[in-house]
């Protein structure tokens, strides 16, 4: 089978698109619905499907915590001229899921948020969420640069590192984040090697 046949088999040709469109007509939809078991997902084990469902149904963070996570996430990855902010990319929703999926995150996240609120209360008599943008940055500046952390602030720096990592994971694996990065793959193509202009840019023409 050649590459064109491969793509046909995947359903990526004009003909099969038409078939797909047909399948989306109201009549066809009914037919499919009766024959399909919505709880089955091809290639996923029953326990995985059940586990995901269970995690989606439970809630870990309270409203105050999730608000604070959103504020921090947007400080870490704000909107700019290329893409939206962390909350635009639903990073808090991702963090809510991942701490249930990987429970070892729960205490560092919950405790870290609490640590942050206590810092804010001591400094400004307000929780981090209620503090002004300038006040929030006043605290963040003390915990965002791990090589110059003042005594007593190391726990906060550890929490911020975790928050930075989870925010980056959540943002750059969202549709918005993948587009922002310019990842150009995950589609059928033919790999012909490094483009000529790139080889030239790095002076590698002789190595090909």
């Amino acid at each position, binding site marked *: *089978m*050649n*590459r064109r*046949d*491969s793509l046909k*088999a*995947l359903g990526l040709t004009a003909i099969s698109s038409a078939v797909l469109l047909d399948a989306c007509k109201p009549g066809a939809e009914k037919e499919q619905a009766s024959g399909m078991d919505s709880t089955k997902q091809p*290639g996923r*084990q029953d*326990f*995985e499907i059940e*586990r*995901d469902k269970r995690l989606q149904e439970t809630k870990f963070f309270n409203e105050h915590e999730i608000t604070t996570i959103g504020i921090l996430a947007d*400080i*870490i*990855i*704000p909107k*700019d001229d290329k893409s939206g902010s962390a909350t635009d990319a639903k990073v808090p929703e991702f963090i809510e*899921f*991942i701490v249930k*999926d*990987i429970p070892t995150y729960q205490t560092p996240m919950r405790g870290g948020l609490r640590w942050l609120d206590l810092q804010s209360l001591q400094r400004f008599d307000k929780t981090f969420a209620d503090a002004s943008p300038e006040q929030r940055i006043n605290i*963040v500046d003390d915990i*965002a*640069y*791990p*090589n*110059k952390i003042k005594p007593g602030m190391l726990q906060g720096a550890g929490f*911020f590192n975790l928050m*930075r*990592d989870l925010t*980056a*994971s*959540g943002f*750059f*694996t*969202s*549709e918005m*984040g*993948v587009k*922002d*990065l*310019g*990842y*150009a*793959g*995950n*589609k*059928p*193509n*033919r*790999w012909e*090697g*490094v*483009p000529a*202009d*790139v*080889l030239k840019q*790095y002076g590698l023409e002789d*190595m090909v």
Partner: protein
Amino acid sequence: MKDFQIKKSDTEYDAIVIGSGAGGGMAAYVLAHAGQKVLMLEAGDHFDPRTDAQQLKWPWESPRRGASTTRPFGDFDASYGGWVLDGEPYTQKDGSEFAWFRSRMLGGRTNHWGRISLRMGPEDFQPKDGLTDSWPITYDDLKPFYDKVDRLIGVYGTVEGIENEPDGIFLPPPKPRLHEYFIRKGAKKAGVTVIPGRGSVLTEALPGNKDRGSCFFCGQCGRSCKVYADFSSSSCLVIPAIKTGNLTLITNAMVREVLTDKSGLATGVSYVNTRDLQEHQVRGKVVILGASACESARLLMNSKSTAHPDGIANSSGVIGKYLHDSTGASLSGFLPQLMDRKRYNEDGVGSVHIYSPWWLNNKNLDFPRGYHIEYGGGMHMPAYGFGGGMQGMNGLVPGRDGKIKEAGGYGASLKDDYRRFYGTGVGMAGRGTAIARESNYCEIDPKTVDKYGIPVLRFHYKWAPEEVKQAKHMQDTFKEVMHGMGAIITSPLPGADTNYGLEAPGKIIHEVGTVRMGNDPKKSALNKYCQAHDCKNLFVVDAAPFVQQGDKNATWTILALSMRTAEFILAQKKKLNVG
């Protein structure tokens, strides 16, 4: 429990194959195509890459964005199973830390493997240093079968003429990616050979095969391939064998033991259905084990009878011993010269584009044998963990204004850093020969059973100075290559306290040697055709028969050995010597 009974089948198959991975799949393929009526028992679920592969999914289609919570190699990886299986424990002896990866599914671990397809060389079969026993066969004995496997399944690569890295019948290899040119530069400075990769991916249509598609370069072989463009035993062997009408497949069938008659010949096997817990017995003229090296050893040791008091095929007491996995160590960093690189699709194939076959002479070294190096890097599809540890990178290089930044940070400038560093990562991993030792073994734990009541394996495995020195050599080499290409190393540099980053045994998932071949029935369980010395209608076709693995990944040798064994069975059937 008064309904508890064993269902006995009246059918007698020409052969029963246990396990559907590379070894079992190949044996079933050869026998079914020769008209033999074959029954295959697979402990896990059915899996067909065409319908079940998670190929071409985006990270946001996984709520955990591809994290490895329930699948050790990520949410999209084509493996049902992992290091820990619910209700199927294994135990350790004397502080061993053996790690055992099991895939419970049609095709086994071939659905997700790296597709790196290397032949073992003449010296791997007949070592000249006298440190380990020779195989009862030579490279020349196996070469015709390696050739046939190349033609049947397809492998890309280049003819290099390296004596102990034998060439095959190759499809064209994929061209190098950008970071791989830098690796070649750095390796050259360090005196390390780099050649095009060798992988079982159809970079072109496979001559004579109409059932498999050609690669469309998504780089996701680990998710298994919907158009069958890479080798999985499910897509390339078992499913085609079922189409002959001669192979009956039963999934969710966990085999308990091999059954024998009074004379000690195998008559069939007993298994439990893992879904409804019904017990079964099935009959076969020949029994072929391809359950994986450790699982086959377990099954044999658990098959005790008057004729085989220490387990079937175990009068030598050698079963379980000589367990060995490849050594493994790795190092990673990034290439600052690739920051702000141009974006384009460089997914390529999901196996290696380049690698370093072993390039040195042991006469000048303080350890025996050698290792090969696999390389990673490039502009991958982002997944869970993307950008992790940025505070360990963004303070190491100048920002856009030419000034060194304070590490860590937040905001627009941090967001820009993630873009700037994207696609600069580079990593290397060594895979080396570990010496097969009698003192490294698996055995039946006398106290523990799994949830089906089957006694489980207990592991005893210690690394020796030979392997630790090899890992140190790997790290020294990696550092030199990294420096040679101008990379900045970001992973910790492991020292003597961690055995130079030598992975725990089992972690490389190349475990072999537990039912070894040999000419002497006192020192081996199988003869040179992988036929049990003690039971002539019993064969083992996975990696258990390996006497000593080279640094090469086991799969291509499993396939060639299994094909050779299956052809031997057919020849013996003609002569009426077995079954």
